[in-house]
């Protein structure tokens, strides 16, 4: 995601004497929106620079070779390019001059916004053509190359008798790799994306194939759990090329229930109660009227809660009763709604395109009991900002709603920044809530957080001592 790179850039920028006078938040804003009234032209130049070369990866050996070339271990001749590409590659990268190269993974779809500091001189990797999926013969495990579409994985898994337990809270047409190098919000009722990752197949900053974790089994008791700690930042330590995922058996019976609520207080209480219902729930998604209109045709209630059940054929009726009781207070219920993720790929893609038109600022994690309060405040904030607000959310068994406010606004960086700041102000007034958007990582000044980020930065410098994988950049 380039998060460490952005954070380090800001940390270094605030120490530049000429910029030290600018308060941190104003400096972050100036960097984010590329404000040439605040920043020197050289910095603006750096921020507007794009990676000069994009490589479309077809096999992981290409990435290995590329890393060895960038590390100076192999000549560009070994890339096997034709004369024209060879010349382009060398001139664009400035091979032969005294400069360092880096490489960065390009997510297929970004929910929120691009990072502040782009890759300065190196190569951008495009994994859209590296999209294979392989299922274990007699087990519930898949290995998905990072370019594989989530929707394809989901459909293929169902056909093979498995269930992909995690679904996107905001239904965009994400690739699996977007969860490790982008911001794809995968999750389920029982856990986040990381809970379902057994291993990452990566290419190390030295060009070796390095597996983090174990493809067939959990990684308990094998020294530090570097896998799960690093998943949000994995693409800054290694180049992940495939993900070994833990799937589940396709349940004997599945059912999607939709409950409509018109009262924010009632929906909050209902969400808290349903989060206490045990296994059998695959996911619980919630939308306000704005989001619901984008996802589903027809009239939309103030709030809709969709619950996906999956259990034995004989047990599903009992589970539905339990969910009905927990969601008491609903205005209407639809028990025969199709599972939105079972839709044909083309229909899913069309919905995703409609959803992607909105501007997203990132994830807000909020106790279920406070969801109604949050939704009201976001709506009012959107109205004030002339950007109609909507909310996509999913509920976890911990009682936390992972909410993604969306705004009908042009996706320019100034708007993104101001709306993010507004959401942060709302979240700060709600106990137990956290805004985890990328900008929060730059704004946050809590000492423990700064210490943790500093440790991550040191670990990056140790693991990527070759400065190849999204190398840190000084302003």
């Amino acid at each position, binding site marked *: 995601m380039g998060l460490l790179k952005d954070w380090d850039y800001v940390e270094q920028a605030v120490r530049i004497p000429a910029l030290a006078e600018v308060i941190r938040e104003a400096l972050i804003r100036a960097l984010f929106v590329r404000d040439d009234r605040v920043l020197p032209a050289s910095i603006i130049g750096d921020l507007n620079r794009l990676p000069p070369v994009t490589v479309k990866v077809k096999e992981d050996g290409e990435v290995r070779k590329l890393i060895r070339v960038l590390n100076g271990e192999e000549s560009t001749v070994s890339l096997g390019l034709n004369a024209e590409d060879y010349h382009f590659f060398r001139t664009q990268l400035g091979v032969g001059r005294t400069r360092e190269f880096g490489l960065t993974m390009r997510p297929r779809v970004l929910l929120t916004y691009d990072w502040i500091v782009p890759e300065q001189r190196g190569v951008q990797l495009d994994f859209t053509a590296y999209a294979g999926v392989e299922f274990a013969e007699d087990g519930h495990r898949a290995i998905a190359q990072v370019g594989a579409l989530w929707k394809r994985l989901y459909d293929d898994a169902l056909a093979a008798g498995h269930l992909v337990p995690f679904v996107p809270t905001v239904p965009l047409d994400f690739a699996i790799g977007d969860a490790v190098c982008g911001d794809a919000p995968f999750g389920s009722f029982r856990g986040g994306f990381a*809970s379902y990752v057994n291993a990452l197949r990566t290419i190390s900053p030295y060009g070796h194939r390095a597996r983090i974790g174990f493809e067939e089994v959990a990684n308990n008791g094998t020294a530090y759990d570097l896998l799960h700690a690093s998943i949000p930042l994995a693409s800054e330590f290694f180049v992940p090329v495939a993900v070994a995922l833990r799937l589940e058996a396709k349940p004997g019976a599945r059912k999607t229930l939709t409950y409509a609520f018109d009262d924010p207080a009632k929906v909050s209480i209902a969400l808290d109660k349903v989060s206490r219902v045990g296994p059998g729930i695959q996911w619980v998604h919630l939308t306000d009227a704005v989001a619901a209109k984008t996802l589903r045709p027809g009239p939309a209630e103030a709030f809709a809660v969709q619950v996906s059940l999956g259990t034995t054929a004989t047990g599903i009726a009992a589970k539905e009763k339990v969910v009905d009781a927990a969601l008491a207070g609903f205005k209407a219920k639809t028990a025969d709604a199709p599972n939105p993720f079972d839709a044909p790929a083309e229909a899913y893609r069309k919905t995703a395109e409609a959803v992607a038109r909105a501007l997203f600022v990132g994830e807000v994690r909020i106790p279920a009991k406070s969801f109604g309060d949050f939704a009201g405040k976001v709506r009012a904030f959107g109205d004030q900002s002339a950007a109609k607000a909507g909310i996509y959310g999913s509920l976890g068994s911990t009682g936390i709603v992972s909410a993604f406010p969306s705004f009908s606004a042009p996706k320019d960086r100034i708007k993104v920044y101001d709306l993010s700041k507004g959401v942060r102000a709302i979240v700060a007034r709600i106990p137990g809530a956290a805004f985890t958007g990328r900008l929060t990582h730059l704004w946050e000044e809590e000492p423990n957080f700064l210490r943790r980020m500093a*440790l991550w930065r040191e670990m990056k410098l140790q693991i990527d001592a070759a400065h190849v994988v999204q190398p840190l950049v000084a302003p």
Partner: protein
Amino acid sequence: MASLDYAYRRLVNTLGPERVARSEFERMVYSHDFASLPKIALLQWRLYPDFVALPQTTEEVSGVVKLSDESLLQITPRGGGTGWCGGSVPNRGGVLIDMRKMNHILGIDPDGRTVAVEAGVSWKEVEDFVEAKGFALPHVPLNAIGSTVGGAINSGSTGFGGLRGGSLRDAVANLDVVLPDGSLLKTASGADAGGALADLTPLFFGAEGTLGIVTKAVLRLIPKPELTRPLTYSFPELPAAGRFLKAIVDAGLTPYHAAAVDRDHFVFERALRSDTPEPVDLALVAVQGSKDEVADQEKALDALASKEGGAKLPPAVGDGLWRERHNNYGARRLSRGLMISYNLVPLRRLPEAVETAARIRDKLKLNGSVQAHLVDSTTAALNPYVLMDDTRPSGGTALGFVKRMGDAAFKMDGHPMGLGLFLVFNLRKMHGNATSAYSAVKGVLDPRKKINGGKTFEVWTKYPWPGLRAIPPPGMAIGLEVAAILRRAKPTRDRFVRAYEHSKEG
């Protein structure tokens, strides 16, 4: 290096005389963990700590860690000592920090569904506390009575509830850790950020105290289930019980716990307790939920078991085994201790794995039991144990079993669990080219290797001389392999478990 007397005085000034021990007997108690070690190990390591410190607060832990900058003594943190690979025993003496005086439950947050505890409290105490408040822990380690919260986190343990409630890692929201420089770090943000905001919590799972000392933990809670029903099924052979466990996952069922236990375990238990069930290969499954849900799951399980030739045992059997679920290693009283080999294997290969474990045990002419339980939808834990007879010179060769089991786990695309002193040679086999990344993490957090040094990437010995200060990890593997070969060459089984032998003959 400061003198030991000076170091002792400084420790006493920090903790008080009653919480610093240096007598021979007390040091001896801390010179081993749950695994029984042959005395020959003392030739290689100084397993006896110089001092045992018993801090009661995070500040005291920090104080003791900072003192090691003056004394240059190694720090070895220790929880309940229920580990099995020497992760919590010293290799060069030094200060052993026993965390069990930090055993308070700090408070429960019913709205946030979390409980804050000190690292030295046992899981059983936490479980009892939260159950009295109407909650349950989503994940409980196997040895909940002796295992401390910090100890289980550091060993990356598996246990009860994994299939239903997720891993122990998912059940921990935040940790307080004293880093090797003596500073305190909160590993996650105060609000639940779902792994964002530079969350470092997972890094301490399985770290065996090599990155820092966990002093407090915030654990997640789930509502207490309405009903828990243990069910037991006997099978003609253990692989059939393994197939039954796999079938449970394939059917999409999510019991709270599902384990396969061979008949030998009950033979040992019978020698100790008369109320032990009849020895038989069996599966123990605990289902939870409302009455309807439990009944539905029970019906489904009955059908799955009968497909594998399983016969349902009377409810009293299941109830008894469930009551005693945390007392799994009574057999150590029959001998001079036992060795447990913890391994994770792919669930799809579980039937093969239990057969392999029994074969290795028999080849090495050991007395022991094969056990396994479900961890998640891809993984099963295979944790056989064997009895040791350290009264004979050949007793220590039983350690070879752990090596052979680990090798077998690797062959089945799984891995052994734990590194510690004895299994550190597995690290490179586990992580291959990624090993250097793990080494980098230790280098960042503990550059001077103050805390539990010489156990992860190299094996320190007690000797100060160059060339002998450390041995390459594969050296340990060779030693254990030789033990296994000697064991195999031994003509007979150990004869010390009379009850076992009688029962076999009978």
